[in-house]
């Protein structure tokens, strides 16, 4: 083994090529260098000849390679492939020539068009905000390549054909690849956007096809995640965090840690005590040897049980009004039948397979970060503030993320700031912050715990006439830079989304919110508010159908006549699932339909209940309308995965607090779905010419209520709590 001791690289890493050099000089870095997934191959071609870079998103090398710069994080959702498809479509590129490369942090070029001035990935917006932008980028490049060919061949541009990366002129028999024309294309004027003609959907060659994914290297270990970054002289840091939220270090003794083999330094930062070692295990052993006296005088000492009690009390009282149609209170009082339920959902950790981590290098020139970067300009600005730098002095390299489910888009930049503060204490030395699974489970930023109280009423004919819903839980948006966008008139839209826009035709409908102030850190978690609003609303709708003695699908379809896209996916899912057909003894079938992030999803779940009181989700049939389907197979993978992710919460996962301490620590007590619990899944995609919307999140919300409704059908029991448990 070779330990890198020289530290000749004192300057800020100035380009990805320098990064490549660093990696190749770091021991067995050759393996990494040969397999860097994002950009290295393209970088090597960039060195020779002149690239054609018509805009911020496309670079065509003289070898014909087409590099698409990705403003969105690839965390498994297929965004690299989806965005490249848009470029390749309008460019008429050869798909095998496409390469994805992470774009730098630069909101002037790479902001999310649905996030105002912020560059970041979230809310299932990558495709929706990029659809026209990336197509236009491809069309611009194509027009310039055509202009170059017309100039070289002295023929009218209108006579030039482009197909599969080849430009040709049939009358003269001339043809050339993109690479041959790249240099000349770079000299052409950039066409006015108004002059570009995007393809008619009837002519799409790539959109709508399941092209192979571009984020390769995931079957041979070569894909590079933050955890895999190795820089010359790099140290690994582990942090001892406080045992309770709000606690701080009173005193610590690092003597034993510093004496431990491989430990280099111990540094105090605001979030705890960092131990730096030559490798993970040295740092871990050093951390275990720290002696820390915590000041817990202002720490949070609450317990989930007490919080639930408080939430339930609040749910009995009127809250801030998020929606008011008609007069729900009066209508409830005169309803023939009223169903009422109080729902509870716990805190949840994101538990991405790659625990949080980040690599940072700070020196006189600034700061450079390597991260599965989901919130570029938020992190850039936060880091600049804590280090006293200008944002442009903070360079961010976006690596692949080993999952995120929202966690890496932290509005407080928590773990990124932790990494740069440690690196700042060791200027000139790259530092990799690694959280263990226990750190990741206990350090917070959870999906908030919520209580919903719902009362809904039917008239004598079985028509719903009233709905009153009170939601109690922490606000995700309050206290963040997004507060002005998310929180209006005391209503955090992410607390009520999915309930405040309930699609069912109910004349008297009131939705209220109590935003509770707790010091437990909370954050968006795949599908955000819809994780709990779909659960409560779709169970109550089933209970109303039962009270009205109507079939749950027919009951919903009648109430959705003004919402054709909900109506259509529900009908499709029911038909594909053979709704109403006989099931084996002990089985039940349940349905849910929910819109989130402008996509519409209906799911039919089939469960089997065993004699011993256990149950299994056997099969899920899903219909999804996400507008124009860019890559049908990626849509199916996201819906399959969204269902699996939702099933973890529906069946297994729960973060609880006892006296302010998080009770769970790792996958033995924060359980998640395993292969033996995964149902068979069918995904049906609604044909659509509407603009594309997201699929990363919308598969998740309907599964918990669909399973709960199936269990009710099988057992007659009611379900009001996650994770779901049968009464014995």
């Amino acid at each position, binding site marked *: 083994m070779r330990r890198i001791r020289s530290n000749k690289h004192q300057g800020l890493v100035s380009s990805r090529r320098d990064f490549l050099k660093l990696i190749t000089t770091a021991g067995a870095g050759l393996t990494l260098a040969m397999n860097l997934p994002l950009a290295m191959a393209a970088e090597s071609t960039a060195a020779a000849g002149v690239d054609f870079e018509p805009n911020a998103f496309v670079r065509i090398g003289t070898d014909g390679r087409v590099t698409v710069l990705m403003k969105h994080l690839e965390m498994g959702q297929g965004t690299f492939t989806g965005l490249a498809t848009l470029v390749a479509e309008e460019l008429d590129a050869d798909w095998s020539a496409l390469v994805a490369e992470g774009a730098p942090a630069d909101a002037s070029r790479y902001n999310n068009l649905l996030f105002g001035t912020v560059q970041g990935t979230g809310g299932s917006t990558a495709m929706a905000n990029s659809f026209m932008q990336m197509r236009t980028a491809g069309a611009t490049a194509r027009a310039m390549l055509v202009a170059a060919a017309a100039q070289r061949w002295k023929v009218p541009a209108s006579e030039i054909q482009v197909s599969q990366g080849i430009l040709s002129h049939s009358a003269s028999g001339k043809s050339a690849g993109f690479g041959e024309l790249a240099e000349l294309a770079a000299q052409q004027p950039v066409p006015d956007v108004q002059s570009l003609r995007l393809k008619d959907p009837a002519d799409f060659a790539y959109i709508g096809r399941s092209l*192979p994914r571009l984020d390769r290297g995931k079957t041979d270990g070569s894909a590079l995640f933050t955890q895999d970054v190795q820089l010359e002289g790099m140290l690994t840091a582990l942090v001892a965090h406080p045992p309770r939220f709000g606690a701080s270090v009173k005193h610590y003794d690092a003597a034993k840690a510093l004496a431990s083999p491989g430990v280099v330094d111990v540094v105090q930062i605001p979030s705890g005590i960092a131990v730096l070692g030559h490798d993970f295990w040295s740092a871990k052993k050093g951390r275990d040897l720290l002696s820390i006296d915590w000041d817990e005088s202002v720490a949070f000492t609450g317990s989930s049980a007490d919080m639930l009690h408080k939430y339930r009390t609040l749910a009995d009282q009127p809250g801030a009004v998020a929606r008011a149609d008609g007069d729900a209170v009066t209508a409830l009082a005169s309803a023939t039948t009223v169903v009422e339920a109080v729902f509870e959902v716990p805190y949840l950790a994101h538990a991405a397979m790659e625990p949080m981590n980040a690599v940072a290098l700070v020196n006189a020139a600034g700061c450079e970060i390597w991260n599965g970067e989901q919130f570029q300009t938020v992190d850039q600005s936060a880091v600049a503030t804590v280090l006293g730098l200008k944002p442009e002095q903070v360079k961010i390299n976006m690596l692949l993320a080993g999952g995120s489910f929202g966690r890496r888009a932290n509005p407080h930049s928590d773990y990124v700031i932790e990494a740069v503060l440690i690196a700042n204490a060791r200027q000139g030395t790259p530092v990799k912050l690694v959280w263990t699974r226990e750190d990741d489970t206990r350090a917070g930023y959870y999906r908030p715990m919520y209580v919903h109280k719902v009362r809904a009423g039917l008239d004598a004919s079985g028509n719903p006439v009233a709905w009153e819903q009170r939601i109690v839980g922490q606000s995700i948006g309050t206290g963040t830079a997004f507060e002005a966008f998310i929180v209006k008139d005391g209503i955090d839209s992410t607390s009520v989304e999915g309930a405040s826009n309930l699609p069912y035709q109910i004349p008297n409908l009131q939705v209220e919110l109590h935003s509770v102030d707790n010091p437990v850190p909370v954050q968006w978690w795949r599908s955000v508010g819809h994780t709990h609003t779909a659960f409560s609303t779709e169970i109550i709708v089933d209970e109303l159908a039962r009270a009205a003695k109507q079939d749950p699908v027919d009951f919903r379809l009648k109430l959705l006549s003004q919402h054709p896209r909900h109506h259509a996916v529900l009908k499709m899912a029911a038909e594909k699932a053979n709704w109403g057909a006989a099931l084996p003894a002990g089985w039940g079938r349940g349905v849910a339909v929910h819109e989130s992030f402008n996509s519409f999803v209906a799911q039919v779940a089939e469960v089997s209940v065993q004699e011993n009181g256990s149950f299994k989700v056997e099969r899920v049939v899903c219909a999804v309308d996400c507008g124009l389907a860019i890559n049908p197979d990626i849509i199916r993978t996201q819906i399959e995965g969204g269902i699996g992710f939702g099933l973890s919460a529906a069946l297994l996962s729960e973060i609880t607090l006892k006296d302010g301490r998080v009770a769970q620590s790792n996958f*033995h007590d924060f359980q998640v779905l395993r*292969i033996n619990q995964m149902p068979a899944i069918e995904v049906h995609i609604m044909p659509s010419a509407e603009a594309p919307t997201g699929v990363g999140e919308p598969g998740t919300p309907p599964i918990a209520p669909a399973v709960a409704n199936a269990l009710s059908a099988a057992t007659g029991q009611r379900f009001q709590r996650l994770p779901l448990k049968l009464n014995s």
Partner: protein
Amino acid sequence: MPVTIQVNGVSHALDATPDTPLLWAIRDHVRLTGTKFGCGMAMCGACTVHVDGQPTRSCVTPISAVQGKAITTIEGIESAVAQAIQQAWTELEVPQCGYCQSGQIMSATALLEKNRQPSDADIDAAMAGNICRCATYVRIRSAIKQAAEQLA
């Protein structure tokens, strides 16, 4: 006193304490990073390697326990079974984020090396120790079956 381990046919004398988990020896000392850290307590399977052909959670296996044994990582698998698995994984587009997939492939390869016609129950038993938070399980099951068919 250096500990020597043999990874993918190459011997490495490590400047590491004997209690160092094989995972960190592979990642931080040998510097092969395809084997992933997920939990550190053999609960998720992301760190799975083969030790003398047996699927092993490297995060809880000290290097002192594997001296003289043949360790194979995702970078070193090359049997017909491994290639069939990797090919099926690619054809069926199994990986999403990909972080757990090295471990999934190591477990799946070990399964097919022993059992060329695994049932659903066999697959569940062999793969239930490998968590995938992207829940690619439907495709993992299909890919194992496809690889088995190709090898038949």
